């Protein structure tokens, strides 16, 4: 799987080249265009129960698309639903990434996707929900975000504070705690930050430059309310 980001910025696409017989997983609905040699199948990743749990627990789609170059090599163009940057990660079998539920766009077949339950406090307050996706295995992983993607590199024991709901993905060697944004409860709410995640290295944390929830709240005021 060779991949390349087209039109980097707010409205990117990924071009994926597949050799004959190769197949990749993609978020259902992600395919924009592809060569006639590629077949699109829908697949319940992780079996029926796995797919069911993913659907209900993480809000991810029930089916993933499988794009299979069954009649010879070809290419496919993939795009996410929301405007925002795309990032390509290479997993080497040792690296593992936690990805927030809307972050997955596509992955090589060697990528293993699991739903993982967070602890109660993280689930309630991190803005990522109780379940996140854990990506492991070997191969290329394509993630998308809302807004631009920023990579934070953390050295061992280095800490960094991220507003929840700006998270896209983080490596499993990093850990995080939920904290109030300011020392007082009231100030935490009025500062507009509420809760934040204190990350602790080593590892990588990918964040998005826009907060989908806040954007939704902002846009809601312009939607006419029907009587």
């Amino acid at each position, binding site marked *: 799987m060779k991949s390349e980001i087209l039109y980097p910025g707010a409205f990117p696409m990924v071009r994926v080249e597949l050799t004959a017989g190769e197949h990749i997983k993609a978020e259902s609905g992600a395919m924009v265009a592809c060569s006639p040699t590629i077949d699109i199948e829908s697949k319940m990743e992780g079996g029926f129960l796995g797919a069911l749990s993913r659907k209900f627990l993480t809000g991810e789609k029930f089916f993933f698309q499988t794009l299979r170059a069954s009649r010879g090599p070809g290419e496919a163009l993939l795009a996410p639903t929301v405007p925002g940057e795309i990032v390509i990660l290479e997993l080497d079998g*040792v*690296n593992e990434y936690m990805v927030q539920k809307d972050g997955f766009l596509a992955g090589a077949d060697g990528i293993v996707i699991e739903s993982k339950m967070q602890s*109660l406090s993280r689930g309630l307050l991190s803005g990522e929900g109780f379940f996140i996706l854990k990506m492991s295995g070997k191969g290329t992983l394509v993630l998308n975000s809302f807004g631009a993607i920023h990579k934070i590199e*953390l050295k061992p024991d280095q800490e960094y504070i991220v507003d929840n709901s700006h998270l896209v993905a*983080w490596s499993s060697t*990093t850990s995080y705690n939920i904290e109030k944004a300011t020392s007082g409860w009231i100030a935490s709410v009025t500062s507009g930050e509420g809760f934040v995640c204190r990350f602790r*290295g080593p590892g990588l944390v990918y964040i998005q430059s826009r907060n989908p929830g806040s954007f939704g709240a902002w846009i809601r005021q312009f939607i006419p309310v029907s009587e």
Partner: protein
Amino acid sequence: MSSNALCFGHNHPASGAPCFVQVDAAGLTIIFESTGGGGDREVVPFAALSVSAGGLDHDHLVVKWTGVQGEQTLYLKDQDAIRAFRQTAPDDLSLHFAQAAELVRQVRQRRRLVWGLALGMFLSTVLGLWFGSDLLVQIAVSRIPVEWEQKLGESAYRDFLAQQEVIKEGPAVAALGEMTQRLTEQIPNNPYKFEITVVKSDVINAFALPGGHVVVFTGLMKKADSGEEVAGVMSHELNHVLRRHGLERIVKSLGLLTVVTIVLGDQQGLVGMMKQLSVELLTLKFGREQETEADVTGLQLLQRAKIDPSGMIKFFERLSEKDEGRMEWLSTHPMSTARAERLKAELAALPKKSPEPFTFDWKQVQASLGAQLVVAP
């Protein structure tokens, strides 16, 4: 040789350098794959190492040491490597191992506890609402005065009578009067004044309205083989009234908010709402639990009144058989053999009493209705 660990340090990328960790008696041998060819390899003696647990779920073994290239941190997740490390590590490291393992256990235990508590709270809330709402309904019902109930039943009764032909006197009315008399005598502190109305209709049905109005259709009386059978139905209906089943149904359909209002004492606003509901009373269906309750208490009442309770069971059994005719009583009183069986069992548990017969002759009563006798096969 595939990597089984990630190494972090100033000389490595922030995402960690994939490496292969080998454990032997001397210590750890770390082989970096990225350098290709010769392969960068570093041997670290156990003495230089410190271990702890780390990572997002505290499921990584974190090994730290200060090497030639400064401070190095190794994140191990591979179970085989961890086991090998644990077995070969010298005693002074084992202590740290135990501490790390203890930490992981604590974290997991705490997480399980928190989830368990959360789940428990959720379940108890659901259960509380489930059972608590029934209790609330009962409390609300008990706070509604009987007079209201009577008013409510009265208006529904008048609505119903407008379209019906009533038999005001004759052997049938007298017979039902006698049954009611004998039954109500056995009800202690009866706040209700039962009024029985016989309606001329071939419908096999009888129903009770809140407050004490009981309507019996002539169809039911023609169908019955004896006075005891009709008395069984009467006893069942009277108990719907006594147990305030109609009111319970109404309060339930009004919703939780109204129930809370009644319980808290504001009953005024309810009158208007209940008036609207009086029409619906006629189509009211009781719940299965209410039916069972009316059955059982009805049976006990028959027993106390010295009316043969087997008439009730017989009648129910006959109705449950496949039958022609418009069996409306069935639509609101689903018959099942299980129901009759239950009553039989209930009857067996009661002390035997010798029944006293009615003063009327049932065949004559039926004849007065102009009955063509339907004899059950």
